[in-house]
């Protein structure tokens, strides 16, 4: 069976972003002075743990960013036809979850439907909770077997998770072995947190993830771990699909602000005078319009355009994808003002500095000064504001989707899930699982992004470091005072 690779706009952008990141890492490896700040980020236990969680989300996003369409089995030999459905590699991995479609709501791990239905027992029709088509379908007598089956599967999943954690600890010890004098010492130092980077924190994070993921993986083949939604789709699958949407919005929108903010900010700060006035006027106009309104206006415009040109897309996925891509562009175009103001301020300061004055005296051209001297020196600002923005945008997506100007309704997103949950929360009995799943995934993603961003800010902006709450330094100071007191006593 053949397939056709589908290249979506956001896929291209995401993979291009990944390529740029790899390029940056290669550059970092070659230049120790650039590396120092990132090493500082990695030495922060919270940032490292957050980084580990984020990379797991990135992995899911990457798997969900390789799209294809299967060839239809019964197409004639000469000509190939493809399914209208666009799938990703993640869909392939979760194909069982997609197949496990019930008729309507079902609670997490349930074997019965959530609503009563007419079920035929021979000739008799009874109103009862129907058995689910897939959830717990392997049980012959669910009333007695269900609890035991759940516990057995969950425990085996936990054991698998624990085994994975032990293996990871062993692998880390093996990596540490050469620099710590043998793997035994490596393991001991790892567990006592006496390593150069806080590997214990990373290991702890991975262990928690493994212990949570183990039971879920063990159960998800036979149950809906997070239940199903109104149309019977698996909520776990929807949550995993929503990660990519959040990432696309967070990453591409911040990226889209970059060219405007950087170029205009540097031009305004470097040339001053009327250039500065014009650029300032531009961003004041933009910032004076309440953000949601401006975005809503742009999205409305795009929406009408897409409605007018239905012929431009082969599948619904392509349409939804173009919409989210344009949304990112809109968020970028409307959101560059803050960073631009920061870059302008920094450039104003930099152009008076000695090295720029020297370059000007040597007759270096303006464009060269800007590219070689100004850009590298404002990059830390750009980086800090990019990582700080990322989590805000993920939260923003939910609000925009709720307002009705976010991503396409056919696309899985946290905003869409919350929007549906709104009516589900007013049902009686309560349907809480979609909401809880969206909450759990969204908070872990945004929290990880925030903690990582804090780490980056602390590392790249020395001024912010002293604003950190420091219990550890307090401990150190107390210890120091105690030893000093002891010494004084001895002296006396």
């Amino acid at each position, binding site marked *: 069976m053949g397939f056709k690779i589908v290249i979506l706009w956001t896929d291209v952008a995401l993979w291009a972003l990944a390529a740029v990141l790899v390029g940056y890492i290669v550059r970092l490896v070659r230049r120790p002075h650039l590396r120092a700040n990132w090493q500082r980020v990695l030495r922060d236990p919270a940032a490292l743990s957050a980084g580990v969680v984020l990379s797991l989300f990135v992995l899911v996003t990457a798997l969900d960013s390789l799209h294809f369409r299967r060839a239809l089995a019964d197409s004639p030999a000469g000509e190939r036809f493809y399914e209208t459905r666009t799938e990703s590699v993640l869909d392939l991995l979760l194909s069982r979850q997609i197949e496990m479609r019930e008729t309507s709501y079902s609670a997490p791990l349930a074997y019965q439907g959530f609503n009563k239905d007419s079920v035929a027992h021979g000739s008799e029709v009874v109103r009862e909770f129907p058995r689910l088509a897939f959830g717990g379908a392997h049980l012959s007598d669910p009333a007695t077997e269900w609890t035991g089956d759940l516990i057995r599967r969950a425990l085996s999943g936990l054991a698998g998770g624990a085994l994975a954690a032990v293996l990871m600890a062993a692998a880390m010890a093996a990596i540490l072995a050469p620099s710590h004098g043998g793997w035994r010492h490596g393991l001991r130092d790892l567990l006592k947190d006496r390593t150069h980077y806080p590997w214990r924190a990373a290991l702890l994070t991975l262990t928690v993830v493994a212990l949570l993921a183990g039971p879920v993986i063990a159960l998800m083949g036979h149950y809906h771990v997070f239940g199903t939604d109104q149309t019977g789709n698996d909520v776990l699958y929807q949550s995993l699909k929503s990660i990519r949407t959040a990432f696309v919005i967070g990453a591409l929108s911040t990226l889209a602000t970059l060219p405007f903010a950087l170029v205009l900010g540097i031009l305004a700060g470097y040339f001053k005078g009327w250039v500065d006035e014009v650029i300032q006027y531009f961003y004041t106009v933009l910032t004076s319009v*309440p953000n949601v*309104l401006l975005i809503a*206006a742009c999205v409305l415009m795009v929406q009408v355009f897409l409605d*007018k040109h239905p012929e431009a897309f082969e599948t619904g996925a392509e349409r939804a994808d173009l919409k989210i891509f344009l949304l990112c562009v809109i968020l970028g175009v409307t959101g560059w003002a803050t960073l631009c103001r920061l870059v302008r301020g920094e450039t104003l300061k930099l152009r008076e500095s000695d090295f720029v004055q020297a370059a000007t005296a040597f007759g270096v051209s303006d464009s060269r000064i800007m590219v070689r001297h100004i850009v590298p020196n404002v990059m830390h600002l750009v980086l800090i504001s990019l990582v700080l923005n990322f989590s805000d945008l993920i*939260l923003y997506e939910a609000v925009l989707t709720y*307002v009705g100007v976010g991503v396409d309704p056919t696309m899985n997103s946290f905003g869409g899930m919350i929007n549906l949950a709104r009516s589900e929360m007013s049902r009686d009995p309560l349907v809480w699982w979609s909401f809880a799943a969206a909450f759990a995934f969204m908070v872990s993603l945004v929290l990880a992004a925030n903690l990582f961003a804090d780490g980056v800010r602390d590392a790249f902006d020395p001024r912010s470091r002293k604003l950190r709450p420091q219990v550890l330094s307090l401990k150190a100071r107390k210890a120091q005072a105690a030893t000093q007191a002891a010494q004084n006593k001895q002296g006396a």
Partner: protein
Amino acid sequence: MLKYISRRLAYGLAILVGVNLLTFFLFFSVNTPDDMARLNIGGKRVTQEQIEKWKAERGYDKPLYWDAARQGTERLTHTVFWERSVSLMMLEFGRSDARQAVDIGHEVKVRMGVSLQLAVPIFILQLIISVAFALLLTFFRNSRIDFWGVVLCVLMLSISSLFYIIVGQYFFSRVLRLVPINGYEPGLDAIKFLALPIALSLLSRLGGEARLYRAMLLEEVGKDYVRTARAKGLSEPVVLMRHVLRNALIPIITSAGAYLPYVFLGSLVFESFFGIPGLGAFVIEAITGQDFAIVRTMVFLGALLYIASNALIDVVYTWVDPRVRLT
């Protein structure tokens, strides 16, 4: 001062013209008035006659930017852009595109009152509570309270406001039945409808704001004059309240002032969630109904309020910090 005010006014006017141009261009560069008419009339078979009638009723039957058929200044003034922009600048908002019976100016007047009832308490309480929490964290800096306080802040700001709303509404309205789920009544009865949205709005923004204000306060705490104050023998609370807070007020006011336009425009999400008929809910209705006249009016109003609140912040500066002079 007079010179400052007049310059400020001229710049404000220039910004408003810019905003007007921007929104007009945004709306009409992609969609022609014909598209808007078709969208609004709806239905499958829309005749050209109906479209022309719709356009004539709303004044969209002229050229957009330039009327070549006319003579002199009429080439410029006999256009949709000119007529719409001038009326907006005169604060005549006209009628809704979708429903001709709706007078936008009247709606704005009525709804702004409702929005203010929700937003003014939020704005004031927000400032007091966030600054108080930030002061508390600053007082206990480098201790466990500060550390866990900041952890709590980061956790709170990682949760979408939608979660606060849905959980709060479920818990307080459905389980405890303390307040109605949604709706609004004018007069004193409004309190029971507004209490929950106000409380939830405060809660949803507390984490982010307290952390921000804490950073601003800590920035001041490190300065020499604070050490001098302590050296004089002043107690820590006095140093914080009298010296640090006063000097940290400028950045705090700047960041709080950014919310001022929303005080009038209302919170889109909170109003629509709790069924409060303010300006925020009006905007959402207009967005879902694709009513361009209303959306444009609101964008214009938003910009106006932004400019006004910025001017207000500047005046407050001189009051907070006598070193700031408006010239």
